[in-house]
């Protein structure tokens, strides 16, 4: 199954110009790929195929090599962040209190997998490690708002508020 982001690419000319600047800066160093990817991620917030292709062509590094690096390091993302960034804690405390089912419910409602963003750019979904709020387990956050002691039953109502 292809992992191309479902969100249409909305890169601007300015972003592209910045990307080329970053590439020029590192082109001649040993191991230019990591700093270029980090720069690109800063510019775009994620590393879609359009951006990886430019890097591939400019550095003459295969797209697969780049994709392998991007999917190896957790710091890189293949999907943009949504307008609402949902993060469900899968730390031990939350997990034993059922955050796995909560994650499944969210996936079902917004139709988005972990690490992805809905095609309209509204929701992105992440699974995180312990965020230090174990007393409230199970926990999720939507942007800066924290939701604690969650039950699967409350999820539809919480999400409904963000849907329109």
């Amino acid at each position, binding site marked *: 199954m292809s992992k191309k982001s479902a969100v249409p690419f909305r890169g601007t000319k300015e972003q592209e110009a910045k990307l080329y600047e970053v590439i020029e800066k590192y082109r001649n160093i040993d191991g230019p790929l990591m700093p270029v990817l980090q720069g690109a991620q800063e510019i775009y917030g994620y590393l879609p*195929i359009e951006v*990886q292709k430019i890097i591939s062509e400019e550095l003459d590094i295969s797209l697969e090599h780049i*994709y392998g690096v991007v999917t*190896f390091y957790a710091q890189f993302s293949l999907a943009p962040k949504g307008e609402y960034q949902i993060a469900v804690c899968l730390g031990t405390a939350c997990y034993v209190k059922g955050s796995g089912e909560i994650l499944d419910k969210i996936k079902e409602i917004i139709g988005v997998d972990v690490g992805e963003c809905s095609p309209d750019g509204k929701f992105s979904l992440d699974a995180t490690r312990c965020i230090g709020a174990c007393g409230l387990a199970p926990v999720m956050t939507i942007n800066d708002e924290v939701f604690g002691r969650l039950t699967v039953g409350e999820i539809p109502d919480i999400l409904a508020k963000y849907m329109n």
Partner: protein
Amino acid sequence: MNMVNLKINNIDVSVPAGSTILQAAKSANIEIPTLCYMKEINEIGACRICVVEVKGARSLVASCVYPVNEGMEVFTSTPRVLKARRMTLELLLSNHNRKCLSCIRSGSCELQALCNEYGVDNDGKYDGAKTESEIDDSAAHMYRDNSKCILCRRCVAVCEKNQAVSVIGANERGFATHVGSPFEALLDETSCVSCGQCIVNCPTGALSEKDSTAKVWEALSDDSKHVIVQTAPAVRAAIAEEFGNPIGTDGEGKMVAALRRLGFDGVYDTDIAADLTIIEEANELVERIQNGGKLPMITSCSPGWIKFCEYNFPDLLDNLSTCKSPQQMFGALAKTWYADKMGIDPKDIYVVSVMPCTAKKFEIGREDEDAAGVPDVDAVITTRELARMIKRAGINFNGLADEEFDMPLGSSTGAGVIFGATGGVMEAALRTAVETITGKELGNFEFTEVRGMEGIKEASYEVGGLNVKVAVASGLANAKELMKKVQKGEADYQFIEIMACPGGCVNGGGQPIQPASVRNFDDVRGKRAAVLYNIDKNMPLRKSHDNPVLKEAYAEYFGKPGSHKAHKAFHTTYVKRSRFGTL
């Protein structure tokens, strides 16, 4: 040379400094098993099957990457070593789809052989979670079944380092690590060139050619079809290996006998089409040189190379010779002149190719490969698939007496047979082009400068007052290097031969699989190439334009080389593609 002295299993061994323990052991006739190690291209020390004990070292070391030291004492089969290897195998099996019985590599699988040797069985002692995967059957030439992949990354290394294609690699990390393509695309969506080098370098059944033998069996039992077979030059140089013969055994006569017993209506030779290619191509070269055409002209026999050029050097497509490959020329000749001569409707002729190559499976589906309005070639099987058919038919290959190809399409010259080795097309073309340009018969027609297994070879010749510069490359990484020079205008060659597979077709992706333990230490391609040069040396005719059947075909049907009719039948077109495939 600086030598290092050490002891392996208490035996004194002396090897050049810089050798690994593995190499030192090999020189002392001590085998150490390997899985991930491929000389020069995959020295990653990842699988740990090659561990040995070094006196004084706390943990076991990976012998494939560990260098020898003066006075070192190595033990390669202590109980501790054997236990560690067994554990490695058990862990591999725990996440492995252990369906050996139906596996294409059963009998030639390096993992199976080791499990056998180490008494690691199938009882699922370590059964745990299995990585999920689906079979990728999108490409025209092969399957990927990651449930049999042991993540040795040999395929990744050959695709990237030897072929400069790099459309497969390790994606993700930890337990989710798997070999795949960018953005988890199917192989068919990438710029894979179908060379099959990944297949011949895979230790297990994770990678395999698409089997077309069922189609061939079916055609053979269809009385309404005139089923003929052509065998590429390199097949005869390797097929005997499938029947337990040493590398470098000439299997031509027995192969012909076996094909006859399989029931083909004509057992023919791609060599005649190689001769035909030379006649058309030499004519094209002379024309380009004399009329200021696009130079350098580059050969077009290797469909893996053609695809690579289309993906990565679309601006050089006009440099490619428009000649079809020998496989396609054979089909075209069979379905035009031969059909006419035999009074058979081309639609009733079924052409089977036996090829050392998986890219040929892709090639038969290309556009503009249908001289008679039907596909030039109907089915392609690799050397391995032919061996499978012979075994299934119960034919005792080694017991057969040598037989000869049928006429007319079994007629060939020595120039045609050397096509199977890197430099062969160049040499064959020079034999013909030089005589065409000078109008004189060549005394010495062995152009040995372009022989041999180096990745890039160059030579220049005085031909009728003209200085002709040529280059030969095999392996697409070498081709890429050469093409970059051409692009930058740094190379003033007139003629370039390129073969996708390192060493040429003798080392093609459809050839018998030799385990890494052999490939790492033996000159497999050189030995196979020697078979072809030996056949050439003993042929009565050694120049393509002397092929008597082709003389007849031109006189009766095609007129002159490069004529309108010849052009229609034997030349083709290319398409520009993106370096990212359809991604």
